[in-house]
């Protein structure tokens, strides 16, 4: 068994070495005008696919188009519909990944001759359409990593016709998982945000997708969506408000300070925790008087965030913390957290 593996590995290395030299000629020395890449043995076509896929995440532009043409010329793509329904989960996931990596739903712009003459050779001008539609059912795959790979393939296409099914797939997950899946939705790019504004149900009826909206505004730093964030802040939902505040912290627009300050006395600690961070970021040194009451909050998270905001403000914030830490008449909670954060900052050389 080991002997067989070693032999395969040696063969793979030998193939890769040969192909690497051929590939650079093909890409840069107009190899595609002189009759193609050269023959690839029929049993090595899967190896060749893996070889080409290695470049897809790092090489773009014209070279990427040429790599795609090479892939198409192997004819492997014709087996994708079958592989997407294979019994083996790894094969299904690999097929979805392949469709995304080689962007099979896009038309080819450069059509070099195929690797070798074959009956199924890639015909110039033929548009490869509909592969991603076949990936769509994999969102319901019982194996989580297959569904995840399918979602990634769909979002990487940046085609918003897949936004609704991918969003529905994310919404089927638990709330804590959804934040993790935000990376998948980010693949659509910031154009997903206007789509969400237009297509999501009202936040009064269904606030959950709007939580993702707020978090996406933050991750894309989409300042154009700030008015919608402020509107969402008026929806009485704790998780939604906390997510909106997180996004406002990232956008860091001081003009929303007063609106955020209004939530400093919210009964929900999750909201106060975010407010404690937001005030420091949005208000600068002038936020010190508003942060001090939060230092005496009954919830530790809120106190810690308020103290951290004061540390981050520099001289004015640290002076306030030092005064609190040394004032015997100050609230015990406030005094303790002030001391804790000052020690923390001192250990890290922030003072």
């Amino acid at each position, binding site marked *: 068994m080991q002997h067989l593996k070693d032999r395969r590995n040696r063969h793979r290395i030998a193939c890769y070495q040969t192909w*690497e030299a051929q*590939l*650079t000629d093909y*890409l*840069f*020395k107009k190899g595609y005008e002189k009759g193609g890449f050269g023959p690839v043995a029929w049993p090595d076509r899967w190896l060749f696919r893996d070889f080409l896929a*290695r*470049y*897809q*995440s*790092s*090489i*773009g*532009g*014209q*070279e*990427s188009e040429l790599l795609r043409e090479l892939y198409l010329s192997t004819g492997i793509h014709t087996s994708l519909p079958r592989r997407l329904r294979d019994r083996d989960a790894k094969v299904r996931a690999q097929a979805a990944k392949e469709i995304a990596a080689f962007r099979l739903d896009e038309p080819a712009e450069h059509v070099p001759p195929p690797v070798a003459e074959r009956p199924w050779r890639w015909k110039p001008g033929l548009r490869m359409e509909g592969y991603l539609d076949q990936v769509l059912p994999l969102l319901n795959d019982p194996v989580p990593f297959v569904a995840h790979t399918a979602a990634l393939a769909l979002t990487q296409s940046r085609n918003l016709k897949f936004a609704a099914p991918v969003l529905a797939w994310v919404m089927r997950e638990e709330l804590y998982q959804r934040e993790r899946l935000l990376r998948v939705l980010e693949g659509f790019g910031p154009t997903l945000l206007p789509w969400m504004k237009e297509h999501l149900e009202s936040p009064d009826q269904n606030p959950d997708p709007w939580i993702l909206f707020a978090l996406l505004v933050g*991750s894309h*730093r989409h300042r154009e969506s700030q008015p919608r964030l402020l509107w969402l802040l008026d929806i009485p939902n704790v998780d939604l408000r906390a997510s909106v505040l997180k996004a406002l912290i990232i956008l860091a627009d001081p003009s929303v300070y007063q609106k955020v300050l209004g939530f400093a006395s919210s009964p929900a600690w999750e909201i106060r925790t975010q407010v404690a961070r937001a005030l420091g970021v949005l208000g600068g040194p002038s936020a010190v008087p508003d942060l001090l009451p939060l230092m005496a909050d009954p919830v530790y998270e809120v106190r810690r965030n308020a103290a951290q905001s004061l540390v981050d403000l520099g001289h004015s914030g640290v002076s306030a913390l030092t005064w609190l830490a040394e004032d015997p008449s100050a609230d015990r909670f406030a005094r303790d957290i002030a001391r804790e954060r000052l020690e923390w900052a001192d250990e890290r050389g922030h003072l």
Partner: protein
Amino acid sequence: MTRRWPAQTTVLVVEDDQATAKIIQVRLEMEGLRVLVAANGLEALEILDHEKVDLVTTDLMMPAMNGFRLVQEVRDLPPPKGRVPILLLSSNHSEQDMVRCLAAGADDYMAKPISVQVLVERLWRLYERSHRAG
């Protein structure tokens, strides 16, 4: 515009993915450049110690020493080595990363997947700018 690289202009390509490094190396060599390849930041610093390098292009995510740290280390070197133009390549497109890298002293930033043609053009611009600045 035609690029006229002076003879023996040396580019250090720091990239842990050998396949990508090879593609970049061949393309730059076609430009008439001398290309040195390092697999991580530590190897790059060693090369910089012994060789005269005119331009550096580095990946961000690498084992042993990442691109961000490499930029910081290079900028701590005495001139002229410490002033070598650096172009960062990264597959992480976050604005935060870009700002962090440029603040650390990188001269330019490109998000992967990169077009090798654009990379050559950016390197040329960096070279021109650094030579005009003296």
